[in-house]
């Protein structure tokens, strides 16, 4: 059965992911950006990940920018990437559906590495997301498959390794990669 993931575990994993990203960039380029923070979370608040967002409010090493729409978040992420900054988008499935054209235009057609954490709000604990009775849960993986976007689902604390792995994957394939958050974080 899937389990909820504690917010501190996700935040520690994000920090490690950002550290690794900065280290890799420093090896690749002569003029990496010099900032005191580790990286950026671009968020359109997601009920499913609200404990993470609340904990991030107290974090000084991670900058959080709340965006009005997921279109904005994906495009701001593109600008940050061009400037050398590590970014993670935290949105929910409804926001993915709302921003498909930007996902296509910026991350896919623009070949811009873009890593998403997408909350599956209302996902039932005893059902695979594709079998959910809620269309917003059920259509998420098929939509990502349609666009050829690699994705994995966090089904418990043991799965947080997907965060750095799919972040790296977005860099390697120069496009989007997604980690779905299976149950509400705690």
């Amino acid at each position, binding site marked *: 059965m899937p389990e909820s993931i504690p917010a501190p575990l996700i935040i520690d994993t994000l920090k490690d992911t950002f550290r690794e990203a900065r280290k890799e*960039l420093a*090896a*690749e*380029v*002569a*003029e*990496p*950006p010099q900032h005191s923070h580790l990286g*950026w979370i671009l968020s359109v608040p997601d009920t499913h990940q609200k404990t993470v967002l609340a904990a991030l409010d107290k974090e000084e090493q991670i900058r959080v*920018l*709340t*965006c*009005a*729409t997921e*279109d*904005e978040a994906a*495009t*701001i*992420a*593109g*600008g*940050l*990437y*061009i*400037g*050398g*900054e590590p970014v993670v988008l935290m949105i929910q499935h409804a926001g993915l559906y709302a921003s498909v*054209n*930007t996902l*296509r*235009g*910026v991350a896919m*057609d*623009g*070949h*811009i590495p873009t890593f998403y954490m997408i909350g599956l709000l209302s996902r039932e604990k005893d059902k695979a997301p594709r079998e959910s009775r809620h269309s917003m849960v059920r259509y998420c993986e098929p939509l990502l498959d349609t666009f050829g976007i690699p994705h994995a689902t966090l089904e418990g604390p043991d799965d947080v390794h997907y965060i750095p792995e799919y972040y790296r994957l977005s860099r390697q394939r120069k496009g989007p990669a997604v980690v779905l958050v299976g149950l509400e974080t705690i």
Partner: protein
Amino acid sequence: MAAGTNTPDAPPMKPEEVLRLIAAQRGTAICVPTMTTSPEWRAIAPDDLSVGCVGFMGGASSLGLGLALARPDRRVLVLDGDGSLLMQLGSLATVAGAAPRNLVHFLFKNGVYHTSGAQGIPGGLTVDFVTMAKGAGYRAVLAIHDIEDFKRRLPELLKMDGPVFAELHTGLAQQTPMTARGGVPFPEQVTKLRAKLLRPRVAS
């Protein structure tokens, strides 16, 4: 009111002339053109310090915001359109909330979707983007109706603390992305600008 007749006594500014003035004074600023500012901009400033927003209409201000946050050491100039901004109007609040001091948001206001055939935008020229930007929280906002005024104000606009919003009352550009196709594809623009900013190490 017809497109481009912004005030009874001031002919609309020619967007090409406005862009040439910006290009002459931008220095090392990163520029983000979109839609009808794109063809002329790539002719005037065919460098690798620009990245155009084409294919995700409405995204210029957000792309500029990301660049401005990543590179506070450089100015970022967004060359937006009124129809484009309406597609992501919430970005005014997001930009203002992030409060990048290095961002100048130029809005080329002509009242129409020029690229798709000059259909009027909702509300036409009566839409007051200056009030919206001010209400959203931009540090400085203004409207400019004539080219002499623009020439006077531009040096200060390029220096003052942002986010700055300047609504520029312009006529229609001579070219649109539909009449002047081509240019460097978006992914190549991304790669070139990123290389210019970060200077990748050359493998020995």
